[in-house]
């Protein structure tokens, strides 16, 4: 795999540890957390650790930065690597100083012997100690010895980002940079019939116009010229449009009736004997397509060499430099070795957005101007209209209950598209422009990863409660009218919203308290602890009854295997739903950086509140119509709830991913609070006035 410690880090004589993990900064603070892990095992000050960007050919191939797995897996690998690095330096110092290893101590990279003699990492840096394959013979520290891990080290990258230093992909300005823009088709499935590029080409500062099938772009010396020229091309192009999308008003019916591949994802026991069943209850829940809606539209810079064998260099905010390299090489017909992808931070990334797509846009335009770097930044309309979406879906839950309302059998069914069309997932090139080029193929419908890896549509569809029997079925759509891919928490958002709303429906039917009802079928002590903590901290059950105010709870263990999270929401439901407060309890085992972890949970909960209250991708039969902040509104400062996060003690448990844990429980808690406030069960997201009204009994 990654056999040499030198692949992960370098020790520089100047007293710096250069760390090059394969994971990338998405705005989540992961590089700070990984720097802490390294500083801890190496016994150096975190200030000495310099985090290097992931680059193909240099960095270890850690695949994608996704799924809340970085601290869990990359952190664990880094811990072993750094323990071995420390061990090798101590051994070398022991030999040099003539002192047994166990008599040496390390403090901030200084290796000290009791007789006063000393060496250091920096002094031994040139000795090639990190070039030998790893042995795995070195034990990391016990958690009880941690001094850096578990502290809230401030983010390393924020001072630059907050004072305007160039730190983002969009800010690159290499010599000779020119600016590219792509003119997307006016609708899905539209083809470029006629184009007169003369007027665009005549604009002073336009370098070239690129047309390849229905892929159309322009390169200009200045960004303002590229924008004008793209506008000119748009006006001078004729497209053949055709309707390819389902009727938006009939989206749930489309999801239910489209061709699908049906699979049983999980099963325990069988249906109970008819005599045991006192009642049966069922309900159907729906989520719309959701957009990533990052604040910075996707951007990439590409350079094709103008001498010798063509080589392509790309700077990208991709989640995976190696998978993107492979996809780009395939797309442009180069060997992977002739393509280099360097990670540069983008705006906040919550999954598979347009980052990889724009890298191909930039590469295709750069091929037309060898020797000139080309920077392409998407428009807001392209970002909201063309990046992959989190899939729309339906979930139907049915339960058979005994006479006290306890679940005897639970059936969870999902209809929707899969959640990954990332590079590498598809037989064709899974990048937007590839399908628009002459002879290009559409990206094939997203597949369903196995449940052992957390699933996609099936994520968190397996009950987290101790039900005696259940069955989980997924109907993966074989038609993908809008491209769907990974968005923070994947299927867990709807599955948890559905299951936790349904738990409340069952509790209400049995006349039982929602918290008591959950605890009655929850044996896992860590699960019980977060539910109890959120209930206690929010003052569950002790609120004075107030007009139009309500409280609700939602709980899940992310992926049934990662962080435990319980959320209590307080809402006010007057002319619209407002979330006043979210009280959240999380158990993620060992926490590397408590404030960073709390920040992730707060942010995730606020984003989930935005999804739950406001967000829906709008479309007509031709294309996406929600392509601005006016048509795709997100939660604003005046609408954001207070968020109170309690991180439960790690209890000696290993670190679990935390970044996505709050998404589903937050939505469920809000839905349950709306029911508490209004007595109306809203099963269609978002919880807008319109959907609340539609859910009211006639």
């Amino acid at each position, binding site marked *: 795999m990654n056999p040499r410690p030198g692949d992960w880090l370098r020790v520089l004589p100047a007293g710096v540890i250069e760390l090059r993990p394969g994971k990338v900064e998405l705005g989540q603070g992961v590089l700070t957390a990984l720097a802490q892990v390294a500083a801890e095992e190496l016994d150096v000050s975190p200030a000495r650790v310099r985090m290097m960007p992931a680059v193909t050919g240099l960095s270890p191939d850690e695949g994608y930065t996704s799924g809340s797995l970085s601290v869990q897996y990359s952190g664990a690998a880094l811990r072993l690597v750094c323990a071995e690095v420390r061990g090798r330096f101590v051994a070398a110092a022991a030999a040099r100083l003539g002192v047994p290893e166990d008599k040496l101590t390390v403090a901030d990279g200084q290796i000290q012997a009791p007789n006063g003699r000393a060496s250091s990492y920096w002094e031994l840096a040139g000795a090639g100690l990190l070039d030998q394959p790893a042995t795995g013979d070195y034990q990391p520290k016990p958690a009880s010895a941690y001094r850096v891990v578990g502290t809230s080290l401030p983010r390393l990258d924020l*001072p630059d980002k907050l004072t305007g230093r160039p730190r983002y992909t969009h800010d690159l300005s290499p010599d000779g940079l020119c600016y590219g823009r792509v003119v997307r088709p006016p609708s899905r499935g539209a083809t470029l019939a006629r184009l007169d590029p003369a007027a665009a080409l005549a604009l002073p500062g336009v370098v070239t116009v690129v047309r390849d099938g229905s892929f159309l772009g322009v390169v200009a010396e200045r960004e303002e010229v590229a924008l004008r020229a793209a506008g000119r091309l748009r006006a001078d192009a004729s497209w053949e449009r055709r309707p390819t999308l389902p009727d938006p008003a009939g989206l749930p019916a489309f999801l239910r009736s489209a061709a699908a591949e049906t699979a049983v994802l999980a099963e325990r026991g069988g249906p109970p004997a008819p005599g045991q069943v006192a009642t049966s209850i069922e309900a159907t829940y729906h989520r719309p397509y959701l957009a990533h809606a990052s*604040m910075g539209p996707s951007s990439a810079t590409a350079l094709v060499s103008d001498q010798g064998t063509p080589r392509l260099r790309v700077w990208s905010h991709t989640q995976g430099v190696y998978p993107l390299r492979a996809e780009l090489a395939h797309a442009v017909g180069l060997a992977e070795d002739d393509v280099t992808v360097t990670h540069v931070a983008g705006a*906040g990334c919550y999954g598979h957005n347009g980052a990889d797509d724009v890298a191909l846009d930039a590469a295709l335009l750069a091929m037309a101007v060898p020797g000139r770097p080309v920077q392409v930044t998407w428009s807001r309309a392209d970002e909201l209209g063309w990046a992959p979406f989190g899939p729309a879906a339906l979930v139907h839950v049915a339960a058979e209950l005994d006479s006290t309302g306890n679940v005897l059998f639970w059936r969870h069914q999902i209809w929707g598209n899969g959640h990954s069309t990332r590079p590498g997932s598809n037989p064709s090139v899974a990048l937007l422009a590839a399908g628009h080029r002459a002879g290009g193929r559409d990206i094939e419908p997203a597949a369903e990863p196995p449940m052992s890896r957390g699933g996609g549509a099936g994520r968190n569809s397996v009950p987290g409660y101790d039900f005696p029997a259940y069955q989980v079925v997924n109907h993966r759509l074989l038609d993908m009218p809008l491209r769907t891919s990974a968005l923070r928490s994947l299927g867990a958002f709807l599955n948890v919203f559905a299951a936790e709303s349904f738990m409340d429906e069952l509790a209400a039917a049995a006349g039982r308290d929602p918290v008591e009802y959950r605890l009655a079928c929850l044996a896992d002590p860590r699960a019980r602890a977060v539910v109890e903590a959120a209930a206690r901290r929010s003052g569950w059950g002790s609120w004075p009854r107030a007009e139009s105010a309500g409280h609700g709870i939602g709980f899940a263990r992310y992926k049934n295997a990662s962080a435990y999270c319980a959320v209590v929401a307080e809402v006010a439901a007057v002319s619209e739903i407002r979330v006043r407060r979210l009280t959240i309890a999380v158990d993620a085992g060992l926490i590397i950086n408590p404030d960073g972890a709390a920040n992730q949970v707060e942010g995730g909960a606020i*984003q989930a509140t935005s999804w739950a209250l406001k967000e829906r991708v709008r479309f007509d039969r031709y294309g996406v119509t929600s392509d601005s902040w006016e048509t795709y509104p997100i939660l604003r400062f*005046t609408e954001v709830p207070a*968020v109170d996060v309690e991180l439960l003690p790690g209890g000696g448990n290993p670190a679990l991913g935390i970044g996505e844990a709050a998404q589903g429980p937050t939505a469920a808690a809000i839905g349950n609070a709306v029911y508490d406030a209004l007595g109306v069960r809203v099963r269609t997201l978002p919880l807008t006035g319109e959907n609340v009204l539609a859910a009211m009994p006639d």
Partner: protein
Amino acid sequence: MDDERAAPATAVLVNGQRREVRTERDTALLYVLRNHLGLKGTRFGCGLGLCGACLVLVDGLATYSCDTPLWAVQGKEITTVEGLGTADQPHPVTRALIARQGAQCGYCLPGVIIAAVGLLGRNADPSDEEVRVALDGNLCRCGAHNRIVRAVLDAAAELRAAPEATA
């Protein structure tokens, strides 16, 4: 950029310095700042004045640079986030944001800082609600809102205690 020589020259006053740029007079101020002057802290978010990532101060007033043409800022004083402080000597608002770790990706923050500085210029003692209203034109997708609001309140308190702290 050969074509640039053909474009008209315009003088702009940015962060206390008079700079000359060559571009068409209807070019958005955003591109003048980012590309002609290399001030990358002002960010493109939507191009329509709907998200606040591109905010700059024009004569002290928070203004969307993405839909402000160059001709409209002639003779006016423009302040970008780079003009408010550096990583070593940050503006009190920026310092408070770092202290509160009031960011995740950080992309929207320069616009937020500009809006906050604009607010504190006209209201030295805003309430939580007034800060939220002032920042309502700034979108943040990572969910750092509450930390940002607390940081702005911290900075306001600091500036009231020591008004000369303004960089």
